[in-house]
């Protein structure tokens, strides 16, 4: 039965691939028959295994011949030879010189599509490096293609460096592996942009020479050549501008961001002509019906198949050429938008900028560029401001603490200085991480926000201690002033913002079930927004107190200006309060949440909320899971389930409200929110979005209060299309 396979002639073939150490004792004995026979003797479901190997280990095995797991399988089923660049040149399957204009245009467009697919989270090996030309640009003789290949490699390299540095990506966003490919490192950035420029100039000459002249009989061939030259020229120029913009981002000066913004704006102007000339490029000889990749000269989708790790997304679908321009224009829009961050100087403003930017779910490259623009290598904000100074400014803007006021004796007190400086330097890292968190994708942000609460809880503790120490110092020096809960208020404000964002993002990410809405909205309206508003008004009054003291001091110093001062005082009383907008918005949000809470309770009373059959868990388990990250926070203290049940118990009212009363109350809350928002001067899009929810809900709640469709068993629908966090309630 036993056969020594070493004598079989095909064995020499096997040997080729087997490493030396295996070859040395390559006496393989065929046991197929016995093995299969022995297996049959095993019982159904029985596993024969080593003591140290169990089902648990077996689970992590990849399954061969399963197209979802076996990356090696695809390459093996294609009936064509997979050639690498050198082999393809040798076999004449690929041109390295005298490429026609349509060929160049087609290759460049396909490369752009690969680049975009890579930026969308696929691996380089399955996207950009399916283009054989970029494997070794030195072998290309055609100058335009060579310059382009180097350009695209540089773009990839800089993008990769930026994304790596910003570290706001996860495996689902970005693949940083280069699989050992050279990213044109032997050529300088300047040399590549120079080469692209040379090609551009050459093409421009051709474009000019083929341009139609007045009174000349137009030759259609010349006209076509003119179009094609122009198409190629635009593509090369676009590549150069994109590359130059990315290079500009790596410079340290703040002014370079404006320069980059100008460059991408120029690139954006080329997109429309690029879009209209896509048809000039050669198309792939489509064989996609069999699930195979499209085949194009210069591209081999399977060339890197064996470089991929065993468990890997097997198939990278390269985006269509028609979608390429739309993607680029959105990317450029995002890059232009992120450059505006440098116009914001206040830390709170920057934080808001990051929040707003993230709300459009931007791509990983623009997110990373924003991060690296914010904090340059030297750890300074925009390369010029110290993070500590930014934090001090934010504190002054928010609570005007005496210790940071030039007019206060603490400002020049050494001990006070030590206290505040050490506090501010401890704040620096958590705030940098908070900003970094906003660079992550939306789903990851939520998770990370839950974790950063721990760091802020530590800061809160320190802030309270520093406040107390500064207060006792101040009492000795200037008894008429106070330094209570200044720093604490500021940290608490950020704590609350993080907590609110954490809860609200659950709606955006569709994590909550309908039967959970009521306690989430309750927690927001009754607790977090209530705390936020009292925190904001405390900060506001602390600002007012500080302004009064400054005024008193000025008044005492210059009596002759008494009259004008008096006028100024009146002005300052009606003067715009910096925090007023935020207080107003919080009131509106609180009313929206309260309205939603009461709606949910009333709907539940009418049996219109589907509840799960709690078997292994209970509402308490779910509740505790939803608010688990808040357990690390001391102020505000977490509300436990039992407390929540007591606080929200309707029986404490006499008589207890019925569903109609609650609908009416909800309607009033929505009405109140509408009133508040309609009085906001210069409303932003967010105000309008909330109004779009509040208005229909007022009507629906009134209808429900009047008993409309009370008998219907159809569950209500919650439409989050108008606002991410608040749904329009629909009764069908």
């Amino acid at each position, binding site marked *: 039965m036993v056969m020594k396979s070493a004598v079989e002639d095909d064995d*020499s073939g096997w040997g080729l691939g087997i490493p030396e150490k295996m070859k040395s004792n390559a006496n*393989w004995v065929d046991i197929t028959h016995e093995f299969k026979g022995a*297996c049959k003797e095993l019982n159904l*479901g029985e596993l024969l295994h*080593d003591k140290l190997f169990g*089902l648990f280990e*077996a689970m992590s095995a990849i399954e061969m011949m399963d197209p979802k797991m076996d990356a090696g399988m695809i390459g093996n089923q294609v009936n064509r030879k997979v050639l690498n660049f050198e082999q393809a040149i040798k076999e004449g399957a690929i041109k390295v010189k005298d490429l026609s204009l349509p060929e160049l245009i087609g290759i460049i467009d396909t490369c752009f599509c690969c680049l975009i697919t890579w930026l969308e989270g696929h691996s380089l090996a399955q996207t950009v490096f399916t283009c054989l030309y970029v494997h070794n640009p030195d072998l290309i003789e055609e100058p335009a293609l060579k310059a382009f290949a180097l350009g695209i490699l540089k773009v990839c390299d800089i993008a990769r460096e930026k994304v790596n540095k910003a570290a706001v990506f996860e495996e689902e966003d970005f693949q940083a592996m280069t699989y050992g490919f050279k990213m044109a490192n032997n050529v300088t950035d300047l040399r590549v942009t120079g080469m692209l420029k040379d090609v551009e100039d050459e093409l421009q000459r051709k474009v000019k020479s083929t341009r139609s002249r007045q009174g000349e009989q137009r030759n259609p061939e010349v006209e076509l050549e003119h179009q094609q030259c122009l198409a190629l020229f635009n593509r090369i120029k676009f590549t150069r501008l994109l590359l130059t913009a990315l290079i500009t981002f790596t410079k340290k000066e703040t002014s370079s961001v404006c320069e980059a913004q100008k460059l991408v704006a120029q690139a954006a102007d080329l997109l429309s002509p690029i879009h209209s000339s896509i048809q000039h490029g050669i198309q792939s000889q489509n064989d996609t019906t069999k699930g195979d990749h499209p085949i194009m000269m210069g591209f081999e989708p399977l060339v890197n198949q064996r470089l991929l790790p*065993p468990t890997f997304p097997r198939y990278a679908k390269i985006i269509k050429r028609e979608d390429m321009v739309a993607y680029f224009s959105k990317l450029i829009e995002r890059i232009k938008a992120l450059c505006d961050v440098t116009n914001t100087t206040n830390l709170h403003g920057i934080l808001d900028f990051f929040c707003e930017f993230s709300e459009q779910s931007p791509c990983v490259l623009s997110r990373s560029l924003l991060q690296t623009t914010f904090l340059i290598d030297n750890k300074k904000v925009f390369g010029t401001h110290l993070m500590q100074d930014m934090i001090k400014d934010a504190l002054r803007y928010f609570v005007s603490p005496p210790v940071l006021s030039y007019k206060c004796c603490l400002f020049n007190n050494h001990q006070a200085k030590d206290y505040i400086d050490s506090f501010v330097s401890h704040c620096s890292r958590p705030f940098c991480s908070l900003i970094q968190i906003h660079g992550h994708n939306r789903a990851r942000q939520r998770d990370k926000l839950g974790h950063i609460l721990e760091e802020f809880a530590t800061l809160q503790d320190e802030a309270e201690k520093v406040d107390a120490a500064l207060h006792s110092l101040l009492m000795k020096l200037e008894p008429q002033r106070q330094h209570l809960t200044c720093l604490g208020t500021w940290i608490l404000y950020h704590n609350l913002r993080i907590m609110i964002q954490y809860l609200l993002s659950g709606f955006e990410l569709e994590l909550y079930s309908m039967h959970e809405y009521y306690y989430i909205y309750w927690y927001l309206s009754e607790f977090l927004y209530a705390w936020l508003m009292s925190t904001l008004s405390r900060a506001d009054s602390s600002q007012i107190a500080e302004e009064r003291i400054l005024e008193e001091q000025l008044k005492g110093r210059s009596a002759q200006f008494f009259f004008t001062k008096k006028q100024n005082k009146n002005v300052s009383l009606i003067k715009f309060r910096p925090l007023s907008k935020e207080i107003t918005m919080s009131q509106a949000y609180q009313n929206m949440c309260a309205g939603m809470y009461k709606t949910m309770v009333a709907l539940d009373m009418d049996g219109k909320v589907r509840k799960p059959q709690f078997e292994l868990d209970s509402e308490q388990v779910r509740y505790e899971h939803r608010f688990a990250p808040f357990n690390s926070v001391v102020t505000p203290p977490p509300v436990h389930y039992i407390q929540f049940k007591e606080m929200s118990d309707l029986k404490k009212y006499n008589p207890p409200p019925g569903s109609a009363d609650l609908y009416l109350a909800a309607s009033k809350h929505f009405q109140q929110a509408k009133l508040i928002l309609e009085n906001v001067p210069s409303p932003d899009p967010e105000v309008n979005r909330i109004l779009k929810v509040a208005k229909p809900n007022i009507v629906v709640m009134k209808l429900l209060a009047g008993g409309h469709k009370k008998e219907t068993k159809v569950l209500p629908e919650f439409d989050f299309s108008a606002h991410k966090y608040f749904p329009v309630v629909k009764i069908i």
Partner: protein
Amino acid sequence: MATMIEENGPSTHVCFPLLSSPSQARQKLEGLLNKNMRIRMTDGRTLVGLFLCTDRDCNVILGSAQEFLKSTDTFSQGEPRVLGLAMIPGHHVVSIEVEAESLEDDQGFEGNH
């Protein structure tokens, strides 16, 4: 770990040992555990790795497996691809070979014949 496996394969204990051959077959297979094995698959690829686990349908799990392409493929033939833990479904197994030297070390398969 061992207990967990037993829970998953209770039939081992329930079954009545009719013949001596089942246990003999089991012994044979156990003798092969942790041996270097070379399995050719239906699509022509070959995997080399340590034999870790099998079942009645001849599904085999190899540890530290390496993938070799068929000898006719001229491209990228030199280097094997590292797969790690890999399961080959029984119906894709074409041939199974075991390294002779390790076989002789502890009178493996032939001894049982």
